[in-house]
């Protein structure tokens, strides 16, 4: 290869690296910043502005502020509820839509597809009223242990809303995964007198494990980072989620202590980065399978 050809083949790398810089820089900053007293740009400095000042003090919120553990538990609870709900309900509906012919099937599929493209955030105002109505129901509204219920201002209610809004994507993906499973075994089982539900549980679910894994990871990450819906429908600080907590930190003190806020941000980012590093392929497959574009 001549030097000219070599340069030619390097150009895409150089361009891509330049374009990707803002992504790098943001994550680099958050990591540096959490271990420094303050930073000038990406350089950690001490109180005089000289290089240095590395510290673990920003992480003191982990033992000094009990709220962080409440909101972390809430966020975890929300993400788990969301994941379990979305996976089970979409796997049920996806199976029926893929394998059973019943009246209304086509309508439901069309509806799912339309809702998939439909901008659900515009419905927040009326969902607020639906949640307030659920709140008035006995027990279910706000009398349940741990999740609080399914009404307004409860973790369960927010999970319910988020499950519903995630269903079009979930059902569509699950139907796609089921469509690709050969149905010889299933047919044999049905002829032997297995019920549909048992076929679903014992034959179909095990054969779409990778699909379930991909949808679970994606849904978990969505729930873990969710801001708008928990922030809108949960008013009590102690029931709120990590994202809302972080947002309130950024708003409260006049000169924002970025290093401390960054530590909370990195704390929230850890599970996302973990999943990202080990499961990128799964995640990319979700998006090529038909994505609900956030923006």
């Amino acid at each position: 290869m001549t030097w000219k050809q070599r340069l030619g083949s390097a150009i895409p790398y150089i361009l891509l690296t330049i374009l990707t810089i803002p992504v790098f820089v943001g994550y680099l900053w958050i990591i540096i910043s959490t271990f420094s007293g303050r930073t000038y740009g990406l350089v950690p400095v001490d109180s005089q502005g000289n290089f240095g000042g590395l510290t673990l003090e920003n992480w003191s919120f982990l033992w000094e502020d009990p709220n962080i553990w409440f909101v972390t538990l809430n966020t975890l609870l929300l993400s788990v509820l969301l994941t379990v709900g979305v996976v089970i309900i979409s796997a049920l509906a996806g199976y029926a839509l893929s394998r059973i012919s019943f009246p209304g099937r086509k309508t439901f599929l069309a509806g799912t597809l339309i809702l998939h493209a439909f901008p659900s955030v515009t419905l927040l105002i009326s969902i607020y009223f639906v949640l307030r109505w659920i709140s008035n129901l006995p027990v279910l509204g706000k009398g349940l242990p741990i999740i609080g219920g399914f009404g307004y201002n409860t973790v369960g209610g927010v999970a319910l809303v988020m499950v519903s809004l995630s269903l079009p994507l979930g059902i569509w993906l699950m139907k796609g995964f089921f469509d690709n499973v050969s149905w010889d075994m299933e047919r044999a089982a049905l002829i032997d007198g297995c019920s549909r539900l048992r076929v679903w549980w014992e034959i179909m679910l095990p054969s779409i494990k990778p699909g379930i894994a991909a949808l679970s990871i994606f849904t978990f990450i969505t729930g873990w980072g969710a801001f708008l819906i928990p922030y809108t429908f949960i008013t009590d600080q102690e029931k709120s989620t990590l994202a809302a907590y972080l947002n309130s930190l950024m708003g409260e003190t006049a000169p924002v202590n970025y290093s401390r806020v960054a530590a909370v941000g990195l704390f929230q980012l850890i599970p996302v980065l973990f999943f990202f590093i080990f499961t990128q392929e799964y995640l990319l497959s979700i998006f090529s399978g038909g994505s609900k574009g956030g923006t």
Partner: protein
Amino acid sequence: MTTTAVPAEPVPMRVSYRDRLRRLVSPMLFMTPAGVLTVAFFFLPVIILFGISLTNLSSSTGFKNYEWVGFENYVKIVQNPLTKLNLIATIKYVSLTLVFFNIGMALVVALLSTHISRRAGFVYRALWLLPRLTPSVVYIMMWKFIGADSPYGIMNQHVLEPLGLSTANWVAARPWLFVILTNGFIGASFGMIIFTSAIESIPRDYMIAAQVDGCNAWQRIRHVILPMMRWPLLFVVTYQTLSLLTSFEQIYLLTDGAGGTEVWALWAYHRALNNYWGNFQWGFGAALAMVLVAIGIVASVVYMRFFQFNALVQEPKIEAM
């Protein structure tokens, strides 16, 4: 798919009434949870939203003393002096983000990452997926710091000062730039993935033929790749226009509508659910949201017609047993 010899469908004998009913039971079992939630959080809300938009329901009227006002809220939207400003902001936001990032950047990254080694291309695409997976509050915090005041901000400290240029708090000074950058870096990944699979599915022969004919890289892109990507391009444009039109979470976190960045969806949200005065105008906000819902319904129906819906919903191969 499987084309193995499949026993012919059993000839349907006379199906008794009980059997027919029994056949409905299992699909019902499978569909009920999804059905109930879809009705409760999609269909009912659309109807409720329209209903609320016809009232003067607000935190000052309370839930009991509101009145039906017909289409007054819609008239108010037309007369409101903010309408024009927010409409312009919305158009600006959607078109600039779409052109520069959701289409432009997506195409550039897809083209570049398919012309390098497979492994490296995958790594770059994965990196571009990261902003979408990052919790929005953390993500916006990074951008706020990139643009923060001197000496803290990254842009000021590492780019502008060494060049001797003036510094500022750039999120406040150039709100539009940051609104488009933050949303763009999230939005680009959607198109990137679709375009990448489209580019990868172009037969290699075409590329080789073009190279034999002496096309340079740009000519290959212009005359071979782009013409074959008409459908994916159209798909991404329509889908992302709708998404952008109704997304406001990042703008809310970044500028909260300051500096002329109050887009339509954020306006509705502010009026109905989130404002400093605690005066929630659910009626007016619902009318604002209803405008977007109407656009959404029309767009998604048109879009279904357009992208050959019937091919996607073929009858299942296995019959109910």
